[in-house]
């Protein structure tokens, strides 16, 4: 009987996806994030790039990849707003890093854990956003925690639908 070391076991559990999925899913998330609010009359109670970041970070279990993906998507989101570029970038960088770091230690096959993690990371991102704007940059920004809570719930709902769908696209040996 072969006993797997930690690194080997990790390699076995790392999920792999077609390159097209890596390219299309984040791009689709960004486009839909920008387009759907028009359809929903301005109710932006979701953050698709964050959901995608968390999914790939948990699946890949690589903090560097999670950090880079979070930073890229966050900066991209910032670029579409009229605010300074980097606020969302920092928030999602931290989210990607934490998701990948936690993913090494928990069972990512469990949906409940993934959804809970998604909910908590959404709230954390909102907190970081507020911290950067109010404390770090000293900006006068009005804030509504109810909206952020609704956004976290929205992310969890979307994750509940999206994660199983994306699971089907992974490459199985």
């Amino acid at each position, binding site marked *: 009987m072969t006993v797997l070391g930690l690194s080997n076991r990790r390699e076995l559990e790392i999920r792999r996806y077609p390159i097209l999925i890596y390219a299309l899913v984040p791009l689709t998330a960004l*486009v839909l994030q920008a*387009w759907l609010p028009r359809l929903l009359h*301005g109710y932006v109670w979701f953050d698709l790039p964050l959901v995608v970041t968390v999914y790939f970070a948990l699946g890949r279990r690589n903090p560097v990849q999670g950090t880079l993906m979070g930073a890229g998507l966050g900066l991209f989101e910032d670029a579409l707003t009229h*605010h*300074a570029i980097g606020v969302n*970038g920092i928030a999602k960088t931290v989210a990607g890093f934490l998701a990948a770091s936690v993913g090494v230690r928990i069972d990512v096959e469990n949906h409940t854990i993934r959804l809970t993690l998604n909910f908590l990371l959404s709230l954390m991102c909102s907190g970081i956003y507020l911290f950067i704007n109010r404390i770090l940059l000293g900006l006068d920004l009005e804030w509504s925690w109810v909206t952020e809570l609704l956004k976290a719930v929205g992310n969890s709902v979307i994750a509940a639908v999206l994660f199983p769908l994306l699971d089907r696209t992974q490459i199985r040996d």
Partner: protein
Amino acid sequence: MEPFFTRYRNLLVLLVLLAAQIIGLAVQVRRTDSGRSSYDIADGPGVRLIRLWANALVTPAERLIHDAKLGVGSLWTGYLDLRHVHDQNQDLQKTIDRLRLEQASMLEDTKQGQRLQALLGFQEKYIYKTVVAQAIGTSGSDQSRVFYLDKGKDAGLEPDMAVITADGIVGKVREVFPHSAQVLAINDQSSGAGVILETTRIRGILRGNAAGQSQVVGVMADPRIKPGEKVLTAGGDQIFPRGLPVGVVEKVVRDPDRDSFVDVIVKPSAYLDRLDEVLVITSTEPRFSAEQDQDVATSEALKGVEAAAIKEQQKASQIMAERLPGLTDLNVPAAGAQAAGKPGEPGAAPGAATPPVPATPPTPKLLPAQHADRYSPGSYPAVVPAVDAKPKPKQNPVPAGQAKQVPVKAAPKPGDPAKPRRTQ
């Protein structure tokens, strides 16, 4: 021993990325004169480049989705759902006729206004040229209420141009890309538009709040501000022409930061969350555009005679109204009859006919004062003889111990000048 960089690779990557972004943020934020921080209004070249890339990546997909949606929509509305089109067409024709008539009747006033403005050296600017654009996307964040148009520099758009709809103002162009443009909506926290309340003529600055509502900030508390009052652009911000509809007052709330100030929450006239087609004002001039001139000429040609006839009729009615003594109400008894006594009552002149008197609007009755003083109505006689400050020569001295009686007139004689009442 594992090398340092290999061991802490994950953490180092995180720290490097965070540090780079924090430095980038510090470059983009500036300190204002008031001591507060704000985003730099004009993006630097690097930031602008990143925005351009992001826009170039997202806009084509958004445009594709939008065009597909429009295609399906036009297929439905243009070929399938054509019920009631004839009725709508007739209604629209009637509306056009009515508007042409109104335009023709107001033409003379407009020309006169322009002549007076020219004399005073003041030039009202009119919307001279507009570009129709479609809203195709948003920022995707509720903290940044901006949206994207499918027209950009190629269509002549420039920053700080006003964006409106037929219902009211929408926002201003913030950033222009080659084939698209970013518009800052009026309900964003960083927006600002000079507005005026139509009835009370109170001016203020319109901006958004966290909930996405538009509010006029920095307004002194005034009980005259009531829900339902219209809000118009004031024209002082050099972006929106004067007099465009903004919305109506929804409610007035106290300013949490400053006493005696209120925030006037405004319900925008334009549907900011459901925008499809907007107009970008690319030029304002102190004269009408060729299209407007042509439209006015058409209205004058078609409805000018009718408008002139209506105006003459109105003028004649006005002259008649001025010359006539007024409407008479035969049921109202005469004031003289009331004073002399009603017919049949003692003191009434027998056979005295009650002449018709002009009907007057009912006079509002004052409520009795809770603590009456000398200023309260009814606490003093109708007419009190003047009391001179200086003592007059005594004609009929009152004996000591006898109560002084103040003579009171029942009614002033006609023709007597009203004496001023002096107070000490």
